């Protein structure tokens, strides 16, 4: 007997909610990026779970997960580059101090 699909969905849901809470409340931009990675990982768990237990169970879910990982890696690379450039110019990593467009 295998583990039921709803258990996987529950783990992914909790992970997504924790990531969402972190992304909305934390001030350090690196921690916000980490929280977004957690949310993407929760989605990946869902995709792989449905690729085994879904109505149209197929290998496509795992391939989509691989594409998601690639896009996430590219996003993190560009995000860290922007962050380093911003730190050099403004001397801060806190998201609530990045308000230059407001002035």
């Amino acid at each position, binding site marked *: *007997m*295998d583990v*039921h*699909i*709803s*258990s996987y*969905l*529950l*783990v992914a*849901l*909790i*992970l997504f*909610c*924790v*990531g*969402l*809470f972190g992304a*909305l*409340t*934390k*001030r350090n931009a*690196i*921690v916000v*990026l*980490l929280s977004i*990675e957690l949310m993407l*990982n929760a989605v*990946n*768990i869902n995709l*792989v*779970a449905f*690729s*085994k*237990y879904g*109505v149209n169970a197929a*290998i*496509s879910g*795992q*391939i989509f997960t*691989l*594409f998601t*990982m*690639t*896009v*996430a*890696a*590219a*996003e*993190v*690379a*560009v995000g*860290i*580059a*922007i962050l*380093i*450039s911003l*730190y*050099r110019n403004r001397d801060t*990593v806190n998201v*609530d101090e990045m308000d230059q467009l407001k002035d």
Partner: protein
Amino acid sequence: MSASYLVFFLLGLLTIGGAVFMINFKRVVHMVIAVGVSFLSIAGLFVLLGAEFVAISQILVYSGAISILMLFGIMLTKHDASEEGSKSKGRVWLTFLGVAALFVVIFTGIQNTNWSAIPVKENTSSLSNVKEIGIEVFTKYVIPFELVSVLLLVALVGAIVMAKKEEE
């Protein structure tokens, strides 16, 4: 209680525990370590779901590359940074309420779905997981695959241009 339940329980606990510790730690470096534990146990969950290739990619990309990239990001900015959280407590509570509402909505959705109506399909193909993925990628998903390589190249060039020192 079979062994797969036990393994699933352990991996799920580590996954959620890493995420929750990440939210609660004060030092940013500790947060990255906690989230690394979470990424590794997600790879374990993938193995449990029969997706070995995705699990190895998860370990290589997330636990390897992204965690190290985050550490580099921390070291190149404020390396002793600590997270003191949002200033206004009201906004934190408002966010918590919103996230809790989202959780309840999706949780009731999961609970009310009749999962036993879905027929359990046995894996009929005799190929291994890696072979299956390879055949599928290079027959049905060739164009997205090539587009992803272009995207990676653009991200590489963009990150270098963005992070290099500007000339006076």
